[in-house]
């Protein structure tokens, strides 16, 4: 069996001495797309950040391709939440995408024309070729999301960790992101997305991880997205789950 792109064992994370993630174990399968699903405050984004070492973990093992992250940073690309940065920052779309190449360019060396060309190619991959010189504050929310995606693509990684890429984007962006996910998968890459929309999980992703501070279930969407599991994940919000139950039962068989 091949080494999983991301393997997390008994991860505990606390924030301000309150436990946010509790004994979390996740194994991400290579060449597949995985959604991390759960209610607000379930620790979905925290899981990604802790895996990347952006916030400290109290305990637990995290390995990327069988080793620590610092051994394979260039193979792992992160797409942060769009709201995490200030979009009034004085840069254009190409500048932001070129940031995905900084590690390859190396410390203290300038961004050269070859890198700008690579950035433009990544922008074209998300359907944003015409916006390379556009100031990022002049882009719509969906376009900003695609710029973030292009930055990760420019990195030419094997594993992509995306934090809510589908959150409040327009239909064109949604299609662009889906096309990118498909392309990554066809090239043998792996994608992990924090996802909030239960109804589209089965259509968009191969695998799902249900998370509410601890892991409720993980595996192929068909096995995981059961009403019982969802009820366990979302707890008291039964009405929502009941409503989804009907939608899910119709969407899952329709997929294959």
């Amino acid at each position, binding site marked *: 069996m091949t080494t999983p792109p991301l393997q997390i064992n008994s991860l505990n994370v606390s924030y301000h001495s309150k436990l946010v993630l509790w004994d979390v174990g996740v194994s991400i399968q290579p060449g597949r797309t995985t959604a991390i699903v759960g209610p607000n405050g379930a620790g979905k984004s925290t899981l990604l950040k802790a895996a990347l070492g952006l916030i400290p973990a109290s305990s637990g093992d995290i390995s990327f391709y069988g080793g620590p992250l610092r051994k394979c940073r260039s193979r792992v690309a992160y797409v942060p939440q769009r709201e*995490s940065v200030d979009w009034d920052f*004085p840069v254009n779309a190409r500048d932001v995408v070129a*940031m995905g190449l900084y590690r390859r360019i190396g410390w*203290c060396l300038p961004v050269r024309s070859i890198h700008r060309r690579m950035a433009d190619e990544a922008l074209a991959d998300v359907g944003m070729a015409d916006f390379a010189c556009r100031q990022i504050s002049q882009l719509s929310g969906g376009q900003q999301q695609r710029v973030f995606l292009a930055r990760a693509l420019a990195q030419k990684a094997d594993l992509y960790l995306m934090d809510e890429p589908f959150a409040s984007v327009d239909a064109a962006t949604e299609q662009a992101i889906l096309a990118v996910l498909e392309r990554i998968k066809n090239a043998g890459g792996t994608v992990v997305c924090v996802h909030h929309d239960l109804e589209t999980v089965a259509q968009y992703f191969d695998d799902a991880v249900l998370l509410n501070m601890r892991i409720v279930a993980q595996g192929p969407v068909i096995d995981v997205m059961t009403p019982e599991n969802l009820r366990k994940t979302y707890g008291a919000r039964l009405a929502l789950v009941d409503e989804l139950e009907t939608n899910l039962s119709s969407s899952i068989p329709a997929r294959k």
Partner: protein
Amino acid sequence: MIWTELDTWIVIAGALTAMSCALPGVFLQLNKQSMLGDAISHAVLPGIAIAFLLSGSKDTLPMLAGALAAGVLTAILSGTIQRIGQVEQGASLGVVFCVFFAVGILLVRVAADHVDLDPSCVLFGSLELAVIQSSGIPKVVWTSLITLAVNSVLVALFFKELRLSAFDNRYAASAGIPPESVRLGLTILTSITSVMAFESIGSILVIAMLIVPGATALLFCRSVGSVLFASLGFAALASAGGHLLAISTIPAMLSYLLDNPDIGSVSSAGMMATCAGLMFFSILLGKILSKPRGASVTQVDTQ
């Protein structure tokens, strides 16, 4: 108004100092850490005083070491208070630098009072006195030129890293460019720059020159590179304009208003800050006034 060689040196020294402050200042603002510049320029005072007391001289090196230690300590202490106390960054910085500044003033007043290090000089600088020298290029011009050169080289070398960690520190960390280290470097650079600028323009103007040229440039520039160049221009302009105000316009106005013909000149450093402020507000005004016109053009476009 009489323009002498000294006036030329005042403008050059002022411009070089202001420009060397503007460079780290731009990145402090992009990092949303404007307050850190304010804090550091105050907090280095006890460092300078202690270095002075220990070494007994006003040599640059011990002063730099003292200021550097105080500057980095400010950043570390406020970071710790922020984390443990869960207060916002501005508040924790405020607590730290007020204490440091108070200690610094005490040290300067009590322990170093009998020697040539007085509080008003530290606060307001003495640009006019610093350039007085029997012959050749004044020392303050050399020190400010070296500071500007060092800052320019470092900003050019680490431009990419500074920009990335200011824009998206999480992504920077995930890509193996640790934003904490980049910020610590910026803190150190700001500390060094404030100390080098102290002698000529004093701590109040250091704050103004760290922030105002960059803030003015950020009003209309669309890339970090152009913000840097424009802020250098505004800094130089503030120096020239400020000195002109100080030796001609303002004294003339004051003489007229106060009916006292003896007012020769006012502080050039103070007027540089005033001039920088005037530029900021005129560009802000221009931006506000041009807004409605821009909106009507878009309306025509859509029709």
